[in-house]
């Protein structure tokens, strides 16, 4: 047996290679495949046209989330095109015997929230889905990434995709985080340092004490946004926190199978002495609550800082000017004190229970600002139930907020939850692209705490000034 030190990424990747091709991609076996209503219909159509079937229906899981309303889910979906996609998902999954958590199913929710929640996501798996934030599942030590519709068709028909092996990057963040700094700030900070394309071509491993001390929810937030610096995905080695999160979940292994799985999971770490193609080191103490000012997630700054000037940015000057013009911001002006119009808490980045706990901890005893419209959208029905069970619901309603029903909502604004043109939204989602949250919408990405501070003050506010 070889004693060559091996990275976590290589261990998982190599265990899934069905076939390697010289001067070509690897044929990679996929353990779990998630599908949703938006990127799957054309893949099913492809199967139909080619007259081929689904090879392993039990390895694919469907949920409706991208295009679903977040109010009155018990009523028929009003938009005929959305309704049609939901119906297509229902019919396609029924035809091929694929599990489907449609609207109103108690298991329904955002695909990257319900997978881990139900123990479908387990360490060492390969996981794909036609959504780029599939990288979320990397928090469990999985190789998980987003794929296109042609690849969805590949996985349905052969349980494999063909991918060249990415390069390896490790990002170490050590030290400790200050008060009011969350996992979202950590990843926004990293992306601001590496830029929106800084990890393109790489698969990232996050290591160091900051990630070791993070909850699974926090690790999911970090891995989720790996794609925003261009990475194929990101992963964290499984540890006691991971095992404790998984244990007892519906589809998690039990008894002897648990012991056997655990023994395997314990081997899933990067050996001493592995050399990465690129490695970065950051100090957790340097990170403050973050906010973005521009139109890609790399355009983030500490909340007390000012918008940079064109000379200070590496990215194209033309794009920088265009971006500020779209946002209505100017070089060198402070972000603190900017009046905002909307607050969105939700998405697969920050729609988990921990995010609502953070939001509630800050708004408790305060009132929603009159100029703010707030959309609080849990990532799943399970999260919604937790919000009620833990008394968070009472705190937020007391403060003047309403809770909506689960779904992707304003993260991509395919449903009615669109931020109007020109309005500013402090959003816990993952993308601040032009028009992402609705045509002309202006998005400021931030953590649930920064969003909460904005929601009660009506402007960009440092949450640390509100935390007792």
């Amino acid at each position, binding site marked *: 047996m070889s004693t060559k030190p091996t990275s976590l990424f290589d261990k998982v990747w190599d*265990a*899934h290679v*069905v076939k390697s091709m*010289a*001067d*070509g*991609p690897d*044929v990679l*076996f996929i*353990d779990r495949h998630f599908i949703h209503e*938006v*990127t799957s*219909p*054309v893949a099913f*159509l*492809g199967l139909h046209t080619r007259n*081929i079937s689904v*090879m392993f229906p039990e390895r694919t899981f469907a949920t409706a989330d991208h*295009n679903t309303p977040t109010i009155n889910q018990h009523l028929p979906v009003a938009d005929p*095109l*959305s309704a*049609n*996609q939901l119906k297509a998902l229902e019919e396609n999954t029924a035809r091929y015997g694929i599990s489907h958590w449609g609207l109103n199913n108690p298991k329904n929710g955002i695909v990257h929230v319900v997978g881990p929640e139900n123990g479908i996501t387990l360490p*060492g*798996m390969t996981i794909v889905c*036609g959504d780029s934030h599939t990288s979320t599942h990397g928090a469990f030590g999985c190789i998980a*990434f*987003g794929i*296109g519709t*042609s*690849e969805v068709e*590949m996985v349905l*028909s*052969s*349980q*494999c*995709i063909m*991918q*060249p092996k990415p390069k390896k990057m490790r990002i170490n963040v050590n030290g400790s985080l200050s008060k009011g700094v969350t996992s979202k700030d950590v990843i926004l900070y990293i992306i601001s340092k590496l830029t*929106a*394309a800084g990890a*393109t*071509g790489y698969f990232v491993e996050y290591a160091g004490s900051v990630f070791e001390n993070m909850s699974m929810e926090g690790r999911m937030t970090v891995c989720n946004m790996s794609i925003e610096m*261009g990475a194929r995905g990101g992963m964290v080695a499984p540890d006691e926190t991971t095992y404790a999160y998984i244990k007892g979940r519906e589809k998690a292994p039990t008894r002897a199978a648990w012991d056997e799985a655990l023994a*395997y999971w314990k081997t899933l770490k990067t050996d001493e002495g592995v050399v990465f193609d690129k490695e970065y080191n950051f100090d957790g103490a340097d990170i403050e609550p973050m906010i973005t000012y521009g139109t*890609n997630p790399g355009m983030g700054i500490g909340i007390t800082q000012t918008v940079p000037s064109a000379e200070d940015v590496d990215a*194209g000057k*033309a*794009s920088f000017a*265009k971006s500020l013009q779209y946002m209505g911001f100017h070089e060198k002006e402070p972000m603190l004190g900017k009046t905002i119009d909307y607050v969105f808490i939700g998405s697969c980045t920050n729609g988990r229970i921990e995010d609502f706990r953070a939001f509630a901890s800050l708004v408790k005893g305060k009132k929603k600002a009159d100029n703010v419209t707030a959309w609080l959208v849990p990532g799943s029905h399970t999260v919604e139930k937790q919000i009620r069970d833990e008394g968070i619901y009472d705190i937020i309603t007391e403060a003047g907020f309403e809770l909506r029903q689960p779904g992707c909502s304003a993260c*991509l*604004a*395919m449903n009615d939850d669109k931020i109007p*043109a020109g309005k500013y939204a402090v959003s816990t989602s993952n*993308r601040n*692209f032009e*028009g*992402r949250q609705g*045509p*002309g919408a202006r998005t400021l990405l931030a953590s649930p705490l920064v969003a909460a501070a904005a929601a009660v003050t009506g402007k960009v506010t440092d949450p640390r000034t509100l935390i007792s």
Partner: protein
Amino acid sequence: MAYDKFTVLKSTAVPLPIENVDTDQIIPARFLKATKREGFGDNLFRDWRYNSDDTPKQDFVLNNPIYSGKILVGGKNFGSGSSREHAAWAIYDYGFRCVVSSFFADIFKNNSMNIGILPVQVSDAFLEKIFQAIEADPKVELEVDLPQQTITIVPTGASESFAINGYKKHNLMNGFDDIDFLQDIKNEIGRFAESSRY
């Protein structure tokens, strides 16, 4: 889905010298509600191309009749963002067969090749040369030669070679896709699955 074979493409090109063109710009999410792969070209760059009342924005390059062709030339980090293959469909459906940039986002690059669009990655300097050539003469032709893996600015002869893996090159030149390939090795996959942990 079948696509036309790609060998040598000689065409004028449409310049889009903007960096970080993301998939939400290429095809905004509200146009992803279809269950068939039809008509996406109409909404390519929708919000850059049209005002909210659906009148064309005169200053956007696709609305400028002096630019046309089957090659789209974009700024650095083209196609970042979501995994929506709809972005590649929109580009193909509009009539482009090749996108040139100095840097591509991974998923977009994969999606493009899977549906028959050739992403050609050139150096920053060569990209600049192309933009300048088009600016000087919008009718300038580029030649993309897949078998030779070269891209040439025809009137000046300035040329650069580009990389592509042998398997993908073979597919594009023959109009094959990965699904055909994977169907052929299904027995092997079946045996692998039997011994897989999950």
